[in-house]
């Protein structure tokens, strides 16, 4: 009865899924049947800081385009977006969700949230 050592990488022939130690889907401890998918419901302080950083970088890009003096419809729309320091923390770290309690869910649940602009939510939510 030796100690069961989880392999670094395992291929589950039945469900045809590749299990590794890393990634969003991780195998359960002893029985490699099914997937364990746990993500925290909220962002950690580090992730929140990174969100703020990314928002500031996008603000800098919009500002550079504005400073160039060029006029276009995309710039008019971009200038209507709130800047990072004008945003509510609720809007920085959560997004509107019609299905969840309080109609909000963490922004990290949005696919590609690190490379997408999502600053405004429906009014009142």
């Amino acid at each position: 009865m030796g100690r069961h050592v989880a392999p670094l990488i395992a291929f589950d022939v039945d469900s045809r899924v590749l299990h590794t130690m890393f990634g969003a889907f991780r195998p359960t401890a002893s029985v490699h049947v099914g997937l364990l998918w746990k993500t925290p419901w909220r962002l950690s302080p580090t992730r929140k800081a990174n969100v703020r950083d990314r928002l500031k970088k996008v603000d800098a890009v919009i500002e550079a385009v504005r400073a160039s003096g060029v006029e276009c419809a995309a710039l008019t729309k971009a200038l209507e977006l709130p800047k990072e320091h004008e945003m509510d923390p609720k809007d920085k770290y959560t997004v509107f969700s019609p299905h969840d309690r309080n109609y909000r869910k963490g922004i990290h649940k949005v696919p590609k949230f690190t490379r997408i602009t999502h600053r405004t939510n429906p009014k009142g939510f």
Partner: protein
Amino acid sequence: MASILAAHRRVPRLIQSLSSSRLLATAVSPTATPSSSSAPSVSSSSSEPLTHYRITLRRSAISLPANIKGTLVALGIHRRMQTVYHRHNPETAGKILRVKELVEVQNVPESAVRTKTEQRRERKAPRGFVVVGNRLSEGVLESA
């Protein structure tokens, strides 16, 4: 061991590189710029008009929609960290704003614009020596 010593004698003496832009890591320079990103900052004292966008791709468009990928193709960007220069116009401004989450933009004057080969040449490290003469060109063979 002897061969290494012999090789040392054959190495031409180190002459200060003419392009002093690259300093040794351990050298202390009074004009050393503060550590920042590799992007050169346009000095505020420069009176040239800023006519170009300096666009650098910082984040990839992998698994983003095809129109975003197409915008990067239209800008002439093929890989991360690539830098391109475009003149100020509304078309380029619109393209930048389409990919604003992936890109870093600066306004630069015309004198700062570099083509791909020019950027490559500037990236190269200078040789630690300058060739001042050549025995063949001095005509040694003629006298022999």
